[in-house]
């Protein structure tokens, strides 16, 4: 997908436009739309939004933050040995959990190849979508 690729500093990661990952929420949520003609089977897309929103301000978030802070204290105050080793392990575990939420959502969108299941899902979502749209004009 060719567009302008501009040079970037060390802390600015640039990529050319149109990368699906960057644009995915945008094309589902923004852009011109004539409501009555929006006809799309939403394969796991509601999940993408819902999962991402749940992350914000829930008890889980608080516990995760607490964990992150505690981890930080130990890492900076203790030197090495088994506690440090244990810490490394939890750290890896925790960070993969943290990232897991968003990645999980993306996986549910792009699927794992089982298209048949997706099609069924989309059927029910499509009908609920179109019924909620029908009165909107």
């Amino acid at each position, binding site marked *: 997908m060719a567009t302008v690729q501009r040079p970037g500093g060390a*802390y600015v990661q640039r990529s050319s436009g149109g990368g699906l990952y960057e644009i995915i929420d*945008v094309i589902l949520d923004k852009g011109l739309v004539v409501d009555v003609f929006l006809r799309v089977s939403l394969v796991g897309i509601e999940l993408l939004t819902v999962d991402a929103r749940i992350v914000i301000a829930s008890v889980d978030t608080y516990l995760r933050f607490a964990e992150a802070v505690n981890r930080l204290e130990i890492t900076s105050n203790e030197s090495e040995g088994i506690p440090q080793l244990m810490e490394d392990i939890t750290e890896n575990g925790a960070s993969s959990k943290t990232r897991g939420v968003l990645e999980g959502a993306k996986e549910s*969108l792009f699927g794992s190849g089982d298209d048949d299941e997706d099609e069924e899902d989309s059927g029910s979502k499509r009908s609920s979508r179109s019924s909620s749209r029908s009165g909107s004009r």
Partner: protein
Amino acid sequence: MTAAKESYVYGVSLPDLSLPKAKGIGGHKLRLVDADGLAAIVSDTTPPVRAGKDELTTHARVLQRAIEDGPVLPMRFGVVMPDDEAVREELLDPYREVLAEQLGELRGAVELHLRATYDEQALMREVVEGDRRIAALSRELRGQSSDATYYAQIELGERVAQAVDAASARDRAAILDALEPMCIAASVSEPEHEQVACDAAFLIEQARLEEFDRAVDELGRRGDGRIRFTYTGPHPAYNFVELPAQV
């Protein structure tokens, strides 16, 4: 039994747009449907349109290529009209004035996306150092079993969450203060995740692109690894087009 073909709409442009050399969704050929000085980029489709990876990528790619040739108002993914006549009668004709006006505004302008994300460790360190109560609570909880201190953990986490909110509000304001004066318009989204300080789209005059690039670089330097920026574009102006709810 074959389902009837309908018209999938990618965007609205001018009749002299050269169509991108790309296939539309499902491998269908792109074409222009024009009416009185406006033209819609469409391809045949057999609905429903599945929002799968290929379909989404194709929609994005067609528009991405199209904006290289001229101003294009991008449609949201999934707009399907019964036929080309409907494209004229339900989209181009009734919204003619507002479409033409927005095409005029987009001439020589580009949309850029910027997302600022915290380095979690740096942010947590800053939060602990910046709040004595958080530091004290965290010291108290250290070494205790997390079952025994469940509610204290939640209290600590809630305070951290508040501190993170405050930090991201500050950082978001600083980012927008630096960039907004350079742009025609900005559209700021609710962050999708608490580690995201700012998620925004900017509409910039092409001529100011380098200036904007430099400003983003400068933000990156000031962020010093504490905040990392993902900076992409030019994109079709998804964030800066709109149709009125009713004609």
